């Protein structure tokens, strides 16, 4: 207490402005609260189970901590104002200068900013913890084990069917046809219950031209010759489409030991941050302007890799190696707190069915409650999980049902033609149900956990939120500043006047649209700009000519709404740019769509520019404020 008093007296005698704003104490208090939030962020997700719900990166908003933040911010700011409002050198006509006034405003800005940005500290703590606890190197190793062991989790039968196979090389090079309508009966094909598989070699044709509707044209020659389309891929830059056409049937029977679901076929990648298809990751990547499916080839390679590793492990006929892999996987699962009742030994035994390594046992995705039927599409918390396990979502799946003219082809061929024993065999669905073991493993939780870790690591919370906080701080400090330099009466009148002006401008624009048919957006922009210029000029024009209150109203509106005015100018310029671009490229479809102004281009970066300009404006405006203040009533 003694020390605080001493510092206060020191400041009071030397820096009355700093003493009055209490910035020293507010900053110290603010830093202390920031440290607390940093600590909360650091420990909040210490338990891995906290990372097993989707969107853990937004926990600050959803866990109620945001309310604590708001309450603390409000208390700090109100408390600060109570202390600061005790003295007002400017109102008492103590000597002041424009620089002093501006410096005072700057202090308000800093204080409000520090008192409202605890979110950043929380997130820094959170991110630091995640980076420290789940460092990249360790996680890369873990994910490798997880992806390899995932092959043996056997939770979905569809991941083990023949068309999933990518290794040896032939399986990834050749196209696997699964539509019974497109099976060439003269070539070698494989049957598993009601499914038929046939492998084709392919050749490709790259198309760049589009038709009038903006769609890629279909190769003419193949259309005439009736050559079957395997699939197509669009390039990422949206400029080309590659069509893959079937060349000839290839016989891969030497490589296929069984057509039934087998571990040999498994090629799914449980977790790959770069190409993750989960809604959360996609949404996150979209919001941050990162392209989804960054590297399709890389993803395909990963699939091949998983398949290869699985096949090699099975071929090695080394049950110990398998068990070791499963044990490592279970160790990781324990570390990540993933619920399961597996043990490496029993699990390995479930898998070990040489030589075909067909899938004989299935594992549940969650612990089944007694009396409730197990549904693999149901997530552990009871909601339907629509995110059906990583299907390679390129055009492959869909295209098989379309013919070269884009028409849907209905089954015209009976599956019994391929498998006469169909009725006597057990269907895959029944096979799955029949062989479902009591083991369970919460794969969804594991995936969510991994997603969360990566999202948090790569989350740029600062750039996302900084603009919100700087403008909150600017708005609040401008408001407080307005009150400090004038009085409550001027402030209230300016709020009311601002409302009336907005209403009047709106009505004017609407009326103009109806009466004079002035619907152009530029008419609205320029009306607003003109009103803005008038408001900015009014304090200067009315000074000494009209009552002091009148000038103060427009002075306060100018101070508080100046950033909006600058923004309006930028928007108008931007709209001119795009409109100009539209006119120039009216005939070019592609260019037309790519018309952007500099506001669209620089986006949030311009917010800093507006802030700087607003600060500069306030700095220059302080001399006018002084002039106004000196005016007699």
């Amino acid at each position, binding site marked *: 207490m003694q020390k605080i008093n001493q510092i206060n007296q020191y400041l009071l005698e*030397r820096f009355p402005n700093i003493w009055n704003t209490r910035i020293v104490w507010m900053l110290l208090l603010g830093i202390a609260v920031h440290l607390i939030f940093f600590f909360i962020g650091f420990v909040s997700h210490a338990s891995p189970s906290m990372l097993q719900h989707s969107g853990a990166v937004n926990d600050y908003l959803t866990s109620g901590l945001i309310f604590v933040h708001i309450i603390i911010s409000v208390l700090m700011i109100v408390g600060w104002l109570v202390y600061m409002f005790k003295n007002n050198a400017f109102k008492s006509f*103590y000597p002041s200068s424009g620089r002093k006034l501006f410096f005072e405003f700057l202090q308000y800005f800093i204080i409000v900013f520090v008192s409202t940005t605890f979110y950043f500290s929380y997130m820094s703590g959170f991110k630091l913890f995640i980076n420290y606890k789940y460092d990249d190197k360790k996680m890369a190793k873990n994910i490798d084990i997880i992806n390899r062991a995932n092959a043996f989790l056997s939770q979905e039968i569809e991941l083990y069917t023949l068309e999933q196979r990518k290794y040896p090389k032939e399986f990834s090079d050749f196209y696997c046809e699964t539509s019974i309508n497109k099976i060439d009966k003269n070539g070698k094909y494989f049957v598993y219950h009601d499914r038929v598989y046939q492998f084709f070699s392919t050749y490709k044709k790259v198309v760049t031209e589009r038709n009038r509707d903006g769609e890629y044209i279909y190769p003419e020659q193949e259309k005439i010759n009736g050559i079957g389309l395997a699939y197509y891929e669009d390039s990422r830059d949206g400029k080309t489409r590659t069509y893959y056409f079937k060349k000839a049937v290839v016989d891969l029977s030497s490589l296929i030991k069984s057509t039934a679901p087998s571990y040999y076929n498994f090629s799914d990648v449980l977790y790959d941050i770069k190409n993750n298809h989960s809604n959360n990751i996609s949404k996150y990547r979209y919001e941050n302007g990162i392209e989804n499916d960054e590297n399709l080839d890389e993803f395909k390679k990963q699939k091949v890799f998983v398949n290869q590793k699985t096949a090699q492990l099975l071929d090695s006929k080394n049950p110990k190696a398998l068990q070791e892999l499963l044990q490592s996987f279970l160790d990781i699962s324990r570390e990540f707190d993933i619920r399961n009742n597996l043990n490496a030994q029993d699990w390995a035994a479930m898998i070990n069915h040489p030589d075909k390594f067909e899938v004989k046992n299935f594992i549940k995705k969650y612990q089944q409650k007694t009396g409730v039927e197990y549904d693999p599409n149901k997530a552990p918390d009871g909601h339907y999980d629509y995110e059906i396990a990583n299907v390679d979502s390129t055009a492959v799946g869909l295209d098989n049902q379309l013919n070269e003219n884009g028409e849907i082809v209905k089954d015209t061929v009976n599956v019994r033609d391929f498998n006469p024993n169909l009725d006597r065999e057990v269907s895959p669905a029944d096979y799955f149900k029949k062989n479902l073991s009591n083991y369970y493993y919460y794969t969804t939780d594991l995936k969510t956990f991994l997603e969360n870790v990566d999202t948090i690591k790569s989350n740029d919370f600062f750039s996302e939120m900084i603009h919100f906080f700087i403008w909150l701080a600017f708005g609040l400090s401008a408001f407080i500043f307005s009150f400090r330099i004038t009085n409550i009466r001027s402030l209230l009148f300016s709020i009311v006047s601002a409302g009336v002006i907005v209403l009047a401008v709106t009505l004017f624009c609407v009326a103009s649209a109806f009466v004079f048919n002035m619907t152009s957006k530029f008419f609205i922009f320029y009306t607003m700009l003109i009103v803005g210029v008038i408001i900015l000029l009014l304090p200067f024009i009315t000074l000494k000519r009209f009552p002091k209150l009148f000038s103060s109203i427009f002075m306060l509106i100018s101070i508080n709404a100046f950033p909006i005015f600058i923004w309006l100018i930028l928007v108008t310029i931007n709209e001119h740019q795009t409109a100009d671009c539209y006119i120039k490229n009216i005939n070019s479809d592609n260019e037309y769509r790519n018309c952007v102004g500099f506001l669209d281009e620089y986006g949030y970066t311009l917010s800093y520019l507006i802030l700087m300009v607003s600060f500069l404006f306030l700095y220059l405006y302080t001399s006018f404020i002084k002039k106004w203040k000196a005016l007699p009533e």
Partner: protein
Amino acid sequence: MTKHQQRVKAVFHFFDNKDLVLGFRKLLDCAMDTQNMTIYKTAIELTDWKENNPEKSDELIEKCKSFLVEIEKIEVKEYPTEISVLQSKNIQKSYGRNRFSLGPVSLEIKKGQVYGLVGENGNGKTTLLRILAKEISHNQGDLNYKFDETPKDEFELRTKLVYIPQRTEKWYGSLKDNLKFVLSSYGVEPEENEIRTLMMIARLGLWNYKHLKWNELSSGYKMRFELARTLLRQPEILLLDEPLANLDVLAQQVILEDLKAIANSVNNPIALILSSQQLYEVEKISDKVIFLKNGKYQDNETKSETENPNLIVEIDTDNSREDLLQIFQPFALEKLNFNGGIFVAYFSPETEFSAVLSALGNSKIQVTYIRNISNSTRRFFVE
């Protein structure tokens, strides 16, 4: 002998006559004039000692005297008081149509002068003061200020025009901090801040109240604190609206004397204009008394041509008008007014006030109060 030395000498006399109360205040005035921090420190220590040892008056006198010797040694530069700090010419202000209008008012005040502004309620005293302080605008006329340093802009001019309204705003936080805030805002050296603040607190008799809160002070002390804050700004002109309101008679006299003394400082004189209802007290200390009636200006220095230079006497007695007329029969009594409780007798200009007094004395009637108001603005009130 300089003006400073003369004043110090006068203070010695107070202590010789054991007039401690007034003497100590005058001592502090002299100390203040030195603008010397060592003297200030001693003055503060002495005040503290005095407040802690109220019964040791002889010792205090000794201490004060030896301190006075110290003070006398310091050279105090005399401030020239010939230049008018404020000049107003035909200032007029009117509110709305056919409503109150003030002026024309022309006045000129030099530093060290005290002007009293009197008049009944609603006659424009506050309006005039606020116009002079540039708080409100006037419609016509010129208003000129001449300060030691010409203000750079309007705002700086306002920092030099110190006006204290009748109802002062509440202070928040420590009173001392508020005072120190003034000094640091005015760029006083940090080392001098505390000393100057305490010196002002001592001078205005606030030593024992400096730790109280605003709410704990009586209105008299509130006014004193407000005055302390104002004086720390080292104003060249000071405009006070009803500083005596809410004060008891004794407190009124003390504060008026203090104001007079502060305004008359040797090296830092202040032009002081104060408004008040306390005509008698204000007249006693003022160099000029301005009377405002319905916004019209009159003062006690210039008698208007229309006005007769009568002897005007105010008498309070239980006797009847007839008794008084009987007594004043030998005099050329022009008229005798009775307004409520007081008689106002207008005699011809050559009548002597002493003759009136002896006539009343000889008649042996009961007189509770009598005053010659021929030159007092009081005459305007009783008209």
